[in-house]
């Protein structure tokens, strides 16, 4: 039988993998992808709580998270493209100046 604990453990594993990705990768694109993993892990725990408590608000919050993540990705990728145009690289270490 699959309980709430199984889903929360899976969500924790995915969150840890995403956190490792955010903290260790220097590629800005990879950081954004790992952020998506963090959001996916929290979405999974929201839906699991929604199912096991019989409350639809959890699913609704996932809906909002998806909307906000879409906006975040659009802005983030625009910044990545700008960064590539100016610096010809997307390594986060190259962002050393406060003002161009």
């Amino acid at each position, binding site marked *: 039988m699959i309980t709430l604990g199984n889903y929360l453990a899976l969500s924790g594993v995915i969150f840890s993998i995403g956190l490792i990705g955010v903290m260790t990768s220097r590629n800005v694109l990879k950081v954004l992808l790992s952020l998506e993993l963090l959001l996916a892990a929290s979405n999974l725990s929201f839906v699991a709580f929604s199912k096991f408590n019989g409350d*639809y608000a959890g699913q609704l919050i996932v809906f909002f998270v998806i909307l906000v993540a879409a*906006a975040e990705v659009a802005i983030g990728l625009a910044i990545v493209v700008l960064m590539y145009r100016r610096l010809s690289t997307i390594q986060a270490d190259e962002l050393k100046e406060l003002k161009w």
Partner: protein
Amino acid sequence: MSPYFFYLFAAILILASLAVVLARNPLYNVLSLVVAIFSLSCLFVLLEAFFVGMILLLVYAGAVLVFFLFVVMCLNLNALKLSSVQQSRFKWLGISVGLLFFASFGLAAKSFIKAQTMDASSIRGTIENIGRILFTDYLLPFELTSLLLLIAIFGIVSLAQGALSTGKDNENL
């Protein structure tokens, strides 16, 4: 039946998210995130959250990750090089996954005929239930989301305009 599916999709999700973090090629990072999102939406369906699962597939796998792929292709960080051996292996993998998908499509068509006689109100997590609380209790957050998307559009347009104008300045200098 359900526990096996949970472990199957959980294993795929963990492997794909490891590939997102560990793979060297940015194209593989993005594509393995597509696999991770797909198995996540399968888990949502197991949790009877059908609407959110479909939205996740449409918005994430359909729009956001294609956007990621588009940017990766535009930046052209490193060209994708595969040997012919790998390509033929991937071909057989692709053919077998395609056949599996076709078989599951047949199963879905069979269950669709059965589902037409079912009582629709007994299914939990449908659009009706979500929509009812979305437009009553959570109406204000829903309206504010449109404002957020508008601000995102303004942000992107101003970023793009700034890039164009500074590009002209550099040319003048």
